[in-house]
């Protein structure tokens, strides 16, 4: 009358669809939580998922239910001190005894926010939905390729170090079988005849000698088949296969002159984080080079980049020159996908701005895959912006965007990298 059924091997993820539905429905809130979470990360931390917090009220399922007030009667267990007619001070918050228990359930418990984790992939997908790397299609085949040696079968010629022993011996064995098979068959026939002759009471001596002689000759010829021949040798073959390089380097250029305060730097940092995460979704390893500058440029580490204090004037071209120098030294544009993001409050020594534009035009922009300039300032644009604007028509992979406050960063980022309509 009873059936035991082992369901353990059945699919586990009966609720997977429902989970997807949940994420689908709350995409807006989750996306917001995701972009908020960006600022808490270090630039290069992309391996973890993210825990998402959604205000409970946003996802509650409304129901008609009783509110506070009116007259309620509740029975509770564990009386240790009360007698009939006692009056008790109304407890705060409704915990313990007293009111509120009755209606709490319909409300969804408490007011804690709804927290859950999404995986790294879900996180990045949500963050960079509808974005794509700029100019990837155009350059991919002719430029940025690196060659990789890959095995490609065997060949008959080559250098001794590439000899494949197993293959060669297999060839040798085959050749030996092929070359001696007819002789062996003949030999076997002759040996059989010889055996018959020898059994004969009166052997035909002449014939006997003849056969013995033939056997001897055959054996010699079989033994003469060489064990290995140049014909047998097989060499491992290698080919060069072009591969789009998976190496990318990201240059972070930032003005650290006196006019840049910590808040502005924080904003820039978020932008760099986004860029780094975005790049690391497409490239296996992404190097980050931090270049900060005031009147002089210097390559620094992350900590110093974001948090050291500097004062002084601003000469942007110094950073651009340093970047060019670093590219020449370490990041060959043939092998590296180079991206650059420059953040500044727009201040520059006026005479320097045309020089910046010129360096970009002639030296940097031909090398990089994408160059984004963000100007973090509430004020009107100055000479640097105006100079950069002149570059826009010439270079598709050059973009400039103003950012006024933190809330702009993510939209601007999306604007810069949005999927171009086909």
């Amino acid at each position, binding site marked *: 009358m009873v059936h035991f*059924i082992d369901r353990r091997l059945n699919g586990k993820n009966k609720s997977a669809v429902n989970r997807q539905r949940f994420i689908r*429905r709350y995409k807006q809130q989750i996306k917001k939580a995701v972009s908020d979470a960006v600022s808490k990360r270090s630039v290069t931390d992309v391996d973890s998922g993210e825990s998402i917090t959604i205000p409970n009220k946003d996802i509650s399922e409304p129901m*008609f239910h009783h509110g506070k007030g009116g007259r309620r009667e509740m029975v509770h267990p564990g009386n240790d001190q009360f007698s*009939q007619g006692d009056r008790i001070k109304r407890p705060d918050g409704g915990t313990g*005894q007293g009111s509120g228990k009755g209606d709490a359930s319909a409300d969804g418990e408490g007011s804690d926010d709804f927290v859950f984790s999404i995986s790294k992939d879900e996180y990045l997908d949500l963050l960079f939905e509808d974005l794509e790397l700029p100019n990837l299609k155009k350059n991919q085949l002719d430029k940025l390729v690196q060659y990789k040696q890959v095995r490609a079968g065997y060949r008959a010629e080559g250098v001794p170090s590439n000899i494949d022993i197993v293959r060669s011996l297999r060839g040798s064995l085959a050749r030996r079988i092929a070359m001696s098979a007819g002789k062996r068959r003949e030999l076997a026939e002759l040996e059989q005849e010889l055996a018959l002759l020898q059994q004969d009471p009166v052997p035909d001596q002449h014939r006997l000698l003849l056969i013995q002689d033939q056997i001897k000759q055959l054996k010699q010829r079989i033994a003469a088949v060489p064990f290995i021949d140049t014909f047998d040798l097989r060499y491992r073959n290698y080919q060069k296969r072009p591969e789009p390089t998976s190496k990318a380097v990201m240059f972070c250029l930032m003005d650290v002159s006196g006019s840049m305060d910590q808040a502005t730097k924080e904003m820039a940092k978020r932008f760099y984080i986004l860029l780094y995460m975005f790049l690391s979704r497409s490239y296996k390893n992404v190097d980050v080079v931090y270049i900060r500058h005031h009147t002089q440029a210097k390559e620094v580490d992350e900590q110093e980049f974001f948090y050291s204090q500097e004062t002084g004037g601003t000469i942007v071209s110094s950073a651009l020159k340093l970047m060019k120098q670093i590219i020449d030294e370490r990041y060959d544009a043939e092998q590296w996908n180079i991206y650059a993001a420059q953040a500044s409050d727009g201040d520059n020594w006026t005479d320097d701005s045309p020089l910046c534009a010129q360096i970009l035009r002639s030296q940097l922009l031909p090398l990089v895959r994408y160059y984004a300039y963000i100007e973090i300032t509430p004020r009107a644009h100055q000479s640097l912006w105006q100079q950069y604007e002149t570059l826009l028509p010439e270079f598709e992979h050059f973009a400039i965007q103003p950012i006024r406050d933190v809330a702009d960063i993510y939209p601007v980022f999306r604007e810069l990298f949005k999927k171009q309509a086909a």
Partner: protein
Amino acid sequence: MAKANPKVTPLSDGPDWTFPLLEAYHQEIRRVADYYQLDTYPNQIEVITAEQMMDAYSSIGMPLGYHHWSYGKKFIQTEQNYKRGYMGLAYEIVINSDPCIAYLMEENTITMQALVMAHASYGHNSFFKNNYLFKTWTDASSIIDYLLFAKEYVSRCEEKYGISEVEDTLDSCHALMNFGVDRYKRPQKISMEEEQKRQQEREEYLQSQVNQLWRTIPTKPSVESTQRQHFPSEPQENILYFIEKNAPLLKSWQRELVRIVRKISQYFYPQKQTQVMNEGWATFWHYTILQHLFDEGKVTERFILEFLHTHTNVVSQPAYNSQHYSGINPYALGFAMFTDLRRICETPTAEDKEWFPDIAGAPWLETLHFAMQNFKDESFISQYLSPKVMRDFHLFAIVDDAKDPSLEVAAIHNQQGYQTVRQMLSAQYNLSQLEPNIQVYDVDISGDRSLRLRYIPQQGIPLAPDSTNEVMKHLHRLWGFKVSLEQQNEDGSITELSRCPAA
């Protein structure tokens, strides 16, 4: 505890279980259950993993649910809580179906499996089969088929009309789910094929009916003074049913979705009304059956100690001032009441004879079966809550009146208080008091087709304003025209609480 009979070889106490061992335990449990005349549906016992348990958990125990984000939310919550160790998983889930499906979790020891089998496959199962509410309101033989039908219907709709469309309708239905229940009218039993056939017919018929209702071109009433006819003529408490039959703009598939939600709500309605009894009954029987096996020497001491440890946890009742307190534990109260009923029958005291003259000294098994079959929580408590249980639980009643700055202790577990405590505890399980009384009051059929709901407060308890407006939006989506909600005050005056659209 009786000494184990040395001649009987006890069953292995594991702790690991095997299928043959489960069979062996089940056979013993069934024998004892038969001995106690537990009448059950055939059992189907399924072994599942913890993850599958969470799946089942998040779809409110339905073995097949249609897809909806709210189940995903529940699943994520359950998973989070489980992973952080805030909660253990339920040991068992049992489904009111024929055959009765019970889930055993793979991780459990053989003791726990035996407990679950006794609890779910015999306790709950016999309750489902024999309690009058379940007999009247649910049809165990067709529920699985119906759920399957619902799931397929919903996914067909999603293919045809898009996930978002379907989700919108379901969201709105879910918001009104508690008001999709017939409290008094009995639903009919139908089978799967019939359901499908009738669904087709219903679609066509319903649409034509609705059109009929709304076809009338509004004409000026010939005599101004004529009292306008109310529609519906009587207020209706089943809002979803009313919408399914009368909403002017719903498409036929949307009507069917409303119906599905309504049906499922109806199916769970008895479970809401019999929590204490149902859990109490199942707990009483797992306790009694396993003790019986121990007395016979069929199970070892190690087994029974592990069992008692778990059992004690299940029936523990934290006091009102404990940090673990979250209301009265239905397992504890139910178990205590059934155990006490047996005591009243077997060894009645003078007090019992005064309070329960009918059952003091009566055969206990019959009395318990009778109690299980013919009551729901509310009436069960008002009938059988004995002074002894009130004393054991140290029950006390609080009156919380918003007009009064302090709370008043209305009664405690003493001679003067027993009646009051019992009556108040019983009222606490009265669903019609727990859920707001909201009914479809009127539709302006010849005018702007607006729908009016009326809320009648009890004890001056207002409707929570925060979610009310949200629910009204959902109602508006289903109804398609103006909807409003008004409150009928004690003095008979009417105040409007909410309307949608707001202007």
